[in-house]
Each structure stands twice: as structure tokens, then as C-alpha cells.
């Protein structure tokens, strides 16, 4: 009887399926990762609402203002202690937007206010923006599934 000669040496598994899967996973996580999170402040508890939907198309220019429970405004890494001294930040942002060719009414102010903050304070922040001729506002809420 004739036997096939067995190859001697190290037994090597086929790595192709594993690499395929791993690349798939990397691609998945790369696509899902969201770098726009930087402008969101973690400490803020947004109010819940089931009707608010994410905007269908992003605004041409947005200013994200995080209004914390203690009345301070977080803009990116910057902390503005009081709503009343927000003007320089707004002026700077408006200048940047206009340099990019975005007209004033198209600038969208996104207000991420904490659920426990005074309504009047949110309004004061909006009025400060209004003083700079900004007129499009979005009140950001967390989508509740209940």
C-alpha cells in the first residue's frame, strides 16, 4: 500500500479568514468613530425628548455653546464663566464664518443646555447671540426612546 508522504515541519494555519475579519472590524469602527464629539461637553445632562430629530443636513456653520448648570458656557475647550461675557467669542466666530463665506443668518447656534439650568439663562444666552445678529437657534436635546 502506498501512503502519501506527510510534510514535516511547523504546522501553519490559514490566516486569511482571520485577517479578513479583523480588517472588517477595523473598517467598521473607523466608520463609526465620531470626531465631532470634541465640541460636546460631557458634563452636560441634556433634557430628553422623543420628537427632536437630528438635522437632515448639517448647517453651513455652527456655533455649539454648552450651557452648564452653574451658568458657565463651554465653547470647545474654552470656559466662559458668565453668559454676559460671551460677546468676544461670538464676534470671533462670526468673523471666521464670514471669512468662509457663510452669511450671518445661516450661522446656526446650537445650544446644549443642562436640563436643570434656568430657562431665563438660556434666553439670556439667546439674546446675547441675537445682539450679534444671529437668528437661527437650535435647542439640543437627547433623543429618548421611551
Amino acid at each position, binding site marked *: 500500500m502506498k501512503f502519501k508522504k506527510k510534510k514535516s515541519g511547523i504546522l501553519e494555519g490559514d490566516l486569511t479568514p482571520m485577517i479578513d475579519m*479583523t480588517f472588517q472590524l477595523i473598517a467598521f*469602527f473607523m466608520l463609526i*468613530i465620531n470626531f465631532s464629539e470634541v465640541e460636546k461637553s460631557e458634563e452636560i445632562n441634556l433634557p430628553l425628548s422623543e420628537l427632536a*430629530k437630528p438635522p437632515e443636513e448639517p448647517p453651513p456653520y455652527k456655533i455649539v455653546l454648552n450651557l452648564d448648570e452653574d451658568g458657565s458656557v463651554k465653547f470647545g475647550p474654552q470656559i466662559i464663566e458668565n453668559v454676559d461675557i460671551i460677546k468676544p467669542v461670538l464676534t470671533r466666530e462670526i468673523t471666521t464664518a464670514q471669512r468662509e463665506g457663510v452669511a450671518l443668518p445661516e450661522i446656526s447656534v446650537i445650544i446644549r443646555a443642562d*436640563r436643570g439650568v434656568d430657562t*431665563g439663562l438660556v434666553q439670556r444666552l439667546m439674546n446675547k447671540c441675537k445682539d450679534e445678529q444671529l437668528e437661527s437657534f437650535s*435647542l*439640543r436635546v*437627547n433623543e429618548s426612546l421611551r
Partner: protein
Amino acid sequence: MKIRGYDKEAEEVKLEMTPMIDIVFQLLVFFIMTYKVTAMEGDYNIRMPAAASEPTLTEETLEDVLMVRLVADPGNRYLQSINVTFGSQTESWPREQFPATVEDYDNKTSPARTIFRNLNNFVIGALGSGSGDPASASEVEAEIEADYGLRYEETVYVIEAISGYKTDDGKIVKLIEKIKFRDAVE
């Protein structure tokens, strides 16, 4: 013909997989670690044109404005009562129960949120009893006048009640989309 140097064994190039797999796993771990599960965020849009371009409220335009007055409890800053005026209709609801816990508050059917359901039903009724055609509903504006100290989330629930509702099968029906704020009452 025999070609010299042609050796089948030697042609099989062996790829060194180990470094690639190392890097690939590093990448995978990085992306998994930075992945954050966050709830989706949505927006309520509010347009507040500069005061100069705003038309003054006349008797005629007042017809299409739903005035909502929010009164806060001075102690716990929750909503105490809502007064609404729409055309000739006026209505007022007191808060029956304040939310005891966050869970109680987040639950839409809890008694703490009856006041918002009342408002929602009023808006549905008021828009329906108008001229009847749905196109006119989009003409209606809402103006919110709130106490300064009112908790912001209460205002958001009021905006939610005014702007629409969700049917049982998950469809969103829009009511009033133009929402404005009046200066807060200090």
C-alpha cells in the same frame, strides 16, 4: 529542456504575517477603546429674527399666535401652571404632581407629566378647530413666556408638547413649528 536554477521549492515566497497582525490588532483595539456609545441628539429649531424686522402683533396676526405662559414654582423651580391663549380660547392647567424621581420624570406616561399632555391635547384641538385645513396649522406661531427660574427641561417638554406628538406606531405628527420666546419674567 531543463532550466537550471528553476526550482519549484524556492519560488514559494513566504510572507511574514506576524508584524501585520500585530499592527492590525493594535488598530482594532484603538478603535474599540475610543468607541463611545452615545444617545442620538436632536434639535428643536427656533428662529429669532432681530427685533427690528419683526412685525408687531396686530389684532389680525394675534389670531394665529398661541401664547403660552409658564409659571414656575418658586421653591423647586418646576412648572406650577400653564396658561394658554389662542384666539378667543383661554385655558389653564395647574401642576397635579411634581416629579419625585428622575425616572418618574423621564417616563412620558407618569402623572408628573400630565400637564404637558393637557397642553398637547389643547394644541391638537385648537389646530383642528381652526379653519380645518392642515396647511393653516403651519401658519400658527407659538410664543412662550416663561418665568426666569423655570427649569430648562420643563421648557423643553412644553416645546415638545407644542411642536407635535408621536402616534402609537411611532410616526411623528407635527403641530406648531414656529416657536418663539418672549423675554423671561424675572
